[in-house]
Structure formats: C-alpha cells, structure tokens
C-alpha cells in the first residue's frame, strides 16, 4: 500500500502554479517538499488536503487520510492551551490529549490563555494537534517556523515516531530536519511553468 499522486495540476487564480506533479509515498517515509519561495509548496499541500480541488491529475487517497497544518496556527487566542487541544481532540473523536501534550512538553502551558503565548509556543500547540488526528498522512507547511533548536528536535522526533508507526508525512520546509526516512520533491521556480497556460481566456486568439 502506498499513497500515489499522478500528474497533478493545481491552479491559483488562473495560473497553473503546479503541473504534472507525480509521486508515490510509502508508509514510513516522509516526502520533503523543497523549492524557492513561491514555487508552489503551499498550493500543493492545500490541494492534497482537499482544500483546493486539483485542476487535473489524480490524488490516490482520500482527504480523510490526511491531516493538514498550514502557515497559520489555528490556535484560538481566547481559549487556554488545554481547551484548544481538547476541542480538536473532540473533533477527531478522541478525548485523550496526553500524547499531544507530551510531544511538545506543553504541560506547563496547559492552563495559559493562548493569547499570552510566544510565537514558538503557539506553533508548538498547533503542531501537537497533529498527533490527535490519528490520520496516516501528515501534511505540514513549514512546521518549524519560530521553533527553537530544542523544539525543532522534538518535532523531528514526533514525525519519526509517526513514520515508525507506519504513517507518512509531506513536509514543506527550507531547513534540514533530520528525519529517518526521507524522499525529496524539488519544485522548480514558477517562471519555468508559465507557458503552459490552461486559462480558457487565453485559448486561441480572440478577435
């Protein structure tokens, strides 16, 4: 069993940001998306997560199999860290947040209202949500933003544990994470792909 994507095309506006993306992801490996700013990493992840429908091509798995975490944290400022986690646990049908708390050592922050967290602390809360979802594929968009060295290591350990348990991960990042089993997908800069327009309004010359 593996997760495959064939010949995927994703658009933003009317521009084909990605074209012909194919990969096959084995359980137990992480796919690292690399590419310069604006090359389409976020676009690809949102498409895989089912937020943007693909323009062409096929995604060989269900949106239900993928847990997404984007550039923004999705942490509610007025709720405490614990309330945030309990809410997401309930949404995913569990009530056990202990694993999530341990992963990023959130215990001391549990009762703190999220609005009083520092940027890195908020990021930790956001990432710990992943372990609550119980989904096989983690799709993470620059997860280590604002994290210090220690917490980056914690994050890598969490991903490794997820991989060891037979999960998979797709991670867009600019840094080296130190994961155990890694494939890399390089995305070329956007310019390269601009000629292959599929905008119906550019199709054939208008009189």
């Amino acid at each position, binding site marked *: 069993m593996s997760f495959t994507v064939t010949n995927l095309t994703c658009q933003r506006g009317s521009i084909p940001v990605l074209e012909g993306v194919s990969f096959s992801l084995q359980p137990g490996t992480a796919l690292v998306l690399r590419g310069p700013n604006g090359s389409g990493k976020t676009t690809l992840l949102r498409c895989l997560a089912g937020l943007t429908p693909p323009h062409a091509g096929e995604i060989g798995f269900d949106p239900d199999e993928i847990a997404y975490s984007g550039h923004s944290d999705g942490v509610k400022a*007025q709720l405490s860290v614990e309330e945030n986690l309990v809410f997401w646990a309930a949404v995913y049908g569990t009530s056990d947040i202990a694993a999530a708390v341990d992963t990023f050592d959130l215990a*001391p*922050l549990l*009762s*703190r*209202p999220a*609005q*009083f967290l520092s940027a890195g602390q908020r990021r930790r809360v956001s990432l710990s949500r992943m372990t609550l979802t119980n989904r096989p594929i983690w799709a993470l968009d620059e997860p280590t933003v604002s994290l210090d060295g220690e917490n980056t290591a914690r994050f890598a350990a969490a991903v490794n544990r997820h991989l060891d348990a037979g999960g998979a991960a797709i991670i867009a990042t600019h840094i080296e994470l130190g994961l155990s089993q890694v494939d890399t997908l390089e995305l070329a800069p956007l310019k390269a792909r601009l000629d292959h327009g599929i905008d119906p309004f550019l199709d054939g010359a208008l009189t």
Partner: protein
Amino acid sequence: MSIWEFANPKRFMDATGPLIPVLGILAGLSLAVGLVWGFFFTPDDFRQGSTVKIIYLHVPSALMAINAWLMMLVASLVWLIRRHHVSALAAKAAAPIGVTMTLIALATGAIWGKPMWGTYWAWDPRLTSFLVLFLFYLGYMALWAAIEDADTAADLTSVLCLVGSVFAVLSRYAVLFWNQGLHQGASLSLDAEENVADVFYFPLLVSIAGFVLLFVVLVLVRTRTEIRNRRILALISRERAA
C-alpha cells in the same frame, strides 16, 4: 503619612479591614432608622397618598447612582495620573454598585410612575437621563469584562470613563433640550419654595446617609475582593510561567 500610601494594596487591606464592620453597622442602622421612620411614622401625603413613601428608596438610590459615577471618574483620574492600582480597582468595584443603584432608581420610579402619571415609563428628561446613565454604566462594565489583561483594562476603561463623563453631561443638556418633563424638581435645594415638608425631609436625610454609608461599605468590600482576585491572578500567572 500621606493618603497615597493607601494606594499600596497591602496598606489598603490593612487599613480597611477593621473599618468595614464599623461602617457596615452604621449603614445598617441608619438605613433601618430612615426607612422605618419614613415608611411607618410619616403621614400620607394629601395628594399622593401613601405612594409618596417610595421616595425613601427612590431619591437616595438616584443620588447614589450619580455619585457612584463621580467616584469612578475621580478614581479613574487618579489611576491615569498616579498609577495607583487600588484606585483602578475601586473604580471597577464601584461600577456594578452604581448600576444597581441606577436600576433601583429606575424601578422605584417606574413603580411610582404608575399611580402618579398613569404610566410606567415616560420620556421625561430626568428619567431619560437616567436611562442614558445606565447605558454608560453598561458600556463601562462591558469594556472591563472584554479585556483580559488587568492593567490594559484599567487604562482603557479609565479613558472611557473620562470621555464618557463629558458626553454624559452633554447628553443631560441635550435631553433637557429635547423634551420638557413631568418629573419633580430638586426637593433638597435650600431655596426652593416647594421643598417637601420637614416630616418627610428628616427621615429622607437619614435614609440618604444610610445609602451613602452602604455605598462606601460595598465599594470597600468589592475593592478588597478585586485586590484578592488580582493577587490570585498574579500568583497563577507566576505559577504558569514557572
């Protein structure tokens, strides 16, 4: 020793602790005397019958509703200028009491209005001003409730209280301009011809004194509660950070 020393929470607690029972007893006594005297030992008014006796609740609560706002204004100024925490908390503590007084004045007035004017509510300028005052209280309290950080809340509510006071006075004049009313004039002013008779007057004074004392006691008690709350919050946030 200057009065500002009481701005230290601990000093304030130490000083007011023993005061409260004394003031409380005094307030209870004068309220009891004023109200019992007013309700049971004054003659019925020749025009208004026994309904006039509601005056012993109505007038003092109306006075205190306004005075509570004045006290909040002063306390807010003190906080803004001298940054004394107790002062900000005293303003916060006074608001719910003031709003209750306003409600009592409105309710007793409405009850009184039915026999006197044949309606619970009329858009008389004084009644209307009171409704407006009620709205100002609501806004002030809502702002306190909405802000998480205590010092930020103190700052912003103080600014609101200042600006609000100016506009409350403006509203009063605007309302007078808008409608001339049915309501009684000032009955306590010294020169007025139509002052109420002495039989009504003295129990009213006692009852007003009772309300003033009651207000002071309640503000002190609530300020002390707020201080304790702040202490708990400070301890909790320290605990959390550790």
